[in-house]
């Protein structure tokens, strides 16, 4: 075993684990964070003090100068609606003059397309700097031990940034189109939103300026700042700053959407109550933010993976093939690491939706949106299949993997079983004849798989299987030599078997509990799954110490099935992202701002699933057409010198030691 890149594997894994933990911890402590107990109390007290002062002033002067009103969401510490000074106009009753349209398409569809395209690109340009930051950091840390690999990492980060730069301008253009679409087609509604979010919009614009400035310095200063070790660290710090500003940008924009879905900081008439922070951090702000960051990472990983997979297919020589095969691996590694915690962040978001309005949650999970969640289940199943397929195919090119390949078929079998359970609907629309034939709204046997107890069990088992598959992939070419190898293997086996048993037990136990208590079982199930991830990965990596290699990975020999699995993952995730965005937005039904600003346009209906599906497919194809154009434009700036594979085989950090 060589010692090279030992640092990089640790740094890379640790970085990703920390990043994931950072985003996941809020989810685990959702009650505390979501409700912002401490911060909330401070604000409540401030507001109460103001209220008291105003009342005192009122008593003293005998006439009211400030009107006070109740917040639609925030409560004080006694559970009563928080009061605030009325600082804005009531929400307008929108009429025909507040909506414009073109003859060729409904305004709502045009806005949807504009919004979705901007979000797709925004997601990509926010994700790439995260990758670049991590990859550049690893490159710096490995420079002394392995300069060749370090240069390779650095070049990869630089190339990704080049693509991102073109995409960044494109994102800004799409943002402009979105803004004009809003102003021209929904002027009445936009006027109201602008009235509430006026300062936020200005801060957003200024942050955009800051993001652009940092981005340009980061990209154009790359070569110059690489010459000096200190400057290189400054350069890497710029990446951190870039990500911070990007995250703030995203959170600010998120506040508009989360306000529309679950408003706060206004009264029931839609009047602003003077506290802009309340408007920004309404109840869904945190979970949507975390969910989007993770989603961006997966989406960005999918795009970079597809980009590399395409170049892998068109590679003219073995070096190029090896390089892009390796890039595929890095992208998929990041993508899967984002994918694993993503359902949990989604779970947190749904929990907050239920907490905000139970009927909104039920509309999503059991009402008119329920079929869309079945489609979501199918899409998530596709993602896990694609990810596992890549890992299984990727394992085939690793020497020594024959020890584990025999388990792949069982894992696929388990995935199929869980997938079938995961996508079983609770109830479906049926004809009377079908209803009679089945003997009721639920099938007597498979109807049991339609409830959340079965679904939670299925998805947790799918994630656990993917984690196991990933651990096997990690150790495929390693001969474990630590003295405690047997104990370690036993621990890993015990963790996974115990986790599976616990997940299944909790799932079955849920059938014997009332629905409101059953929901609580999802927390230990998720915790069990995460235990396999953190404990399993930690033990697995620890066992690589002093391990021997069965041989190098044959980079450049990725099978076509594996390559197309990356494509499938990229398409599926793009489509899924659009679907979930549509669900989140459409659950407002006939409201622009839930319960405050009613949508009185002719487009206020909820689409049929088929109509929505066609729009999602259009958006997916349209954005990928643009990505192809952007990548092509990026390639016009001069072919980068392909980082030649280091002598021997370019085994990435993850696979060495």
């Amino acid at each position: 075993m060589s010692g090279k890149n030992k640092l990089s594997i640790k740094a890379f894994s640790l970085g990703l684990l920390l990043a994931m933990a950072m985003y996941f911890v809020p989810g685990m402590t959702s009650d505390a964070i979501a409700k912002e107990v401490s911060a909330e109390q401070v604000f409540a007290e401030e507001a109460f003090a103001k209220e008291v002062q105003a009342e005192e002033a009122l008593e003293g002067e005998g006439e009211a100068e400030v009107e006070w009103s109740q917040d639609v969401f925030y409560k004080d510490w006694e559970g009563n609606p928080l009061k605030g000074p009325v600082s804005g106009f009531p929400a307008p009753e929108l009429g025909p003059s507040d909506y414009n349209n073109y003859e060729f398409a409904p305004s709502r569809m045009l806005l949807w397309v504009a919004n979705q395209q901007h979000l797709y690109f925004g997601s990509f340009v926010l994700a790439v700097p995260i990758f670049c930051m991590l990859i550049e950091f690893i490159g710096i840390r490995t420079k002394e031990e392995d300069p060749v690999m370090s240069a390779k990492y650095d070049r990869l980060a630089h190339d990704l940034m080049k693509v991102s730069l073109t995409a960044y301008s494109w994102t800004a253009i799409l943002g402009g189109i979105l803004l004009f679409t809003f102003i021209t087609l929904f002027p009445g509604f936009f006027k109201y939103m602008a009235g509430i979010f006026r300062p936020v919009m200005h801060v957003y614009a200024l942050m955009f300026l800051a993001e652009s400035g940092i981005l340009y310095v980061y990209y154009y200063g790359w070569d110059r700042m690489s010459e000096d070790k200190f400057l290189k660290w400054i350069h890497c710090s710029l990446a951190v700053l870039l990500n911070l500003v990007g995250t703030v940008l995203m959170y600010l924009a998120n506040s508009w959407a989360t306000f529309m879905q679950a408003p706060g900081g206004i009264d029931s008439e839609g009047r602003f109550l003077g506290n802009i922070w309340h408007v920004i951090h309404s109840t869904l702000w945190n979970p949507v933010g975390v969910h989007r960051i993770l989603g961006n990472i997966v989406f960005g990983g999918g795009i970079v993976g597809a980009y590399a997979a395409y170049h892998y297919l068109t590679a003219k020589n073995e070096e190029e093939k090896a390089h892009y095969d390796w890039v595929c691996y890095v992208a998929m590694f990041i993508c899967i690491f984002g994918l694993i915690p993503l359902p949990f962040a989604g779970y947190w978001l749904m929990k907050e939706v239920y907490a905000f309005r139970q009927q909104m949650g039920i509309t999503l999970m059991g009402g008119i949106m329920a079929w869309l969640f079945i489609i979501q289940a199918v899409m998530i199943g596709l993602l896990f299949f694609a990810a596992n397929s890549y890992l299984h195919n990727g394992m085939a090119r690793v020497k020594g993997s024959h020890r584990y390949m025999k388990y792949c078929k069982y894992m696929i079998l388990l995935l199929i079983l869980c997938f079938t359970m995961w996508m079983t609907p609770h109830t479906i629309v049926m004809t009377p004849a079908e209803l009679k034939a089945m003997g009721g709204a639920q099938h007597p046997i498979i109807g049991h798989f339609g409830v959340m107890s079965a679904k939670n069990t299925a998805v947790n088992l799918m994630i656990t299987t993917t984690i196991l598959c990933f651990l096997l992939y990690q150790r495929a070419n390693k001969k474990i030599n630590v003295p405690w190898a047997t104990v370690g293997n036993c621990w890993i086996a015990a963790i996974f078997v115990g986790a599976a048993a616990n997940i299944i037990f909790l799932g079955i136990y849920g059938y014997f509990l009332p629905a409101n208590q059953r929901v609580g079982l999802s927390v230990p199930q998720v915790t069990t799954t995460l235990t396999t991830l953190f404990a399993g990965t930690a033990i697995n990596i620890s066992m690589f110490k002093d391990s021997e290699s069965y041989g190098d990975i044959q980079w450049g020999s990725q099978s076509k099935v594996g390559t197309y699995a990356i494509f499938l993952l990229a398409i599926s995730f793009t489509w899924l992202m659009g679907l979930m965005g549509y669900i989140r937005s459409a659950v407002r039904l006939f409201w622009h701002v839930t319960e405050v600003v009613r949508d009185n346009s002719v487009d206020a209906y909820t689409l049929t699933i088929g109509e929505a599906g066609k729009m999602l497919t259009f958006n997916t194809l349209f954005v990928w057409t643009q990505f192809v154009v952007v990548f092509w434009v990026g390639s016009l700036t001069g072919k980068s010198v392909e980082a030649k594979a280091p002598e021997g085989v370019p085994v990435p950090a993850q696979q060495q030691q």
Partner: protein
Amino acid sequence: MLPEQHDILFSFIAIAFALFGIYVFANVILNCREREGANITKWGGIFGAFAIACFSMTVHMFSLVQADQLAFFFSTYLWLVVILLITWGVFLKSNSMEAQSPPIIRGFFFWTTVSLLLAGYTNWLPQQRSDPPPREAAVVGDLTMEEFAEMGRVIIFGAKQVAGQKSIGKGQCPLCHTFDPGDHMGRCPNLFGVEKRSHDRVKENRYATSPIAVGEVEPSSGIVKGKWDEVPEEYRRQHGPDEFTGEDYIRESVMCPTCYVVKDFGNDGDTRSPMPVIIKPPISLSRTEVNAVIAYLQSKDTPGEFATVTVPLPQDDAGNTGGAVVEDTSSDEDAPVFVTGNEDMQTMINTLGCPLCHTIPGIEGAVGELGPKLHEKINAPQRIKDPNYKGKATNTREYVRESILDPGAYVVFNEAEGESFPDGLMPTTFSEMLSVRALDKLVDFISQTEAPAGS
């Protein structure tokens, strides 16, 4: 997209295919120029024709609207592209140029196929469009208590009942509540027997103190618990006893769900109800609508019996100051519809409003599609034989008569949509709109309707 507009997805794919045709043409020309012996005239001509055909078909797609676009795409354009792909494959193989098409093309088709399959999957699932609820239920003319309770049922369940699931009306109640005995979804209390419980509950000790005491104001709704005379005036009961009645309890439950939380169905230790205040957004029921819901809840467990209903009818409601529209019935223009049978058939059917939903051969303008086509000469005998038919008719005339007077006796299956026509959509009030003579005349006519020859 509206039916008269273009389909955004297939318009986009048509453009993509036109570009694909041009790409293939350029690819073939370049390949032929690089290879000696390749017949550039022949192959250029063939693929040039393909490119022109693709371009023409794309232009044609833009002259069509949604449904026609789809039909043309799948019947013609798609096959042209398949033939183009096969011919391109023959060209590449025959000239030993490349083993297969460039990755960008394979990627494009992989992408498009997967995406279209996903769109196809969503179109394969049951389709249900949801329109915004009306701002208020309109009450036209004097209502009977049965009609008023039915209005409440529609507010709760909506007009459309879909087999296998409870449909959701403006009130959104079935999202959480169940209504049948033994049906416990577990989210909110089952409302079977609510009328009886409403009288008992107000006497319970738990009601008096939990989660707030009688006489206290519940902050989120602003309602004073257990005080019917302190309910906001626009919703307040106008007549009746001084004590807090079962009707008052039900009204309080919908206007102030947190005034009393049924054990194990609340949040924060049963101190807060998850139910929204239904007189506020998003539901925002008017006074008349709230009363209609109460009328339904008070009567639903005793079908056909309305003695337990205590809310007043809208026309008798002194407090009804503009919640729902109660129209003046004094003018002839607004008089109830009634057909004597002396009118001609066209006038009769138009007066009754049948053409709005039905296609009726022989009646001009009767091309409605919400209900089944009336080809009863052939259809009625078949439906009587249907195992799902539970009516009493034994011949066509009886079946038609039954369908007019009791539309719910048999709900026709809509073959085109793959589901039943909506139950509950057809009015059940024709018995009050037709004289005996008019009914006989109508039954005679409809019993003889059949599809036009050649259709």
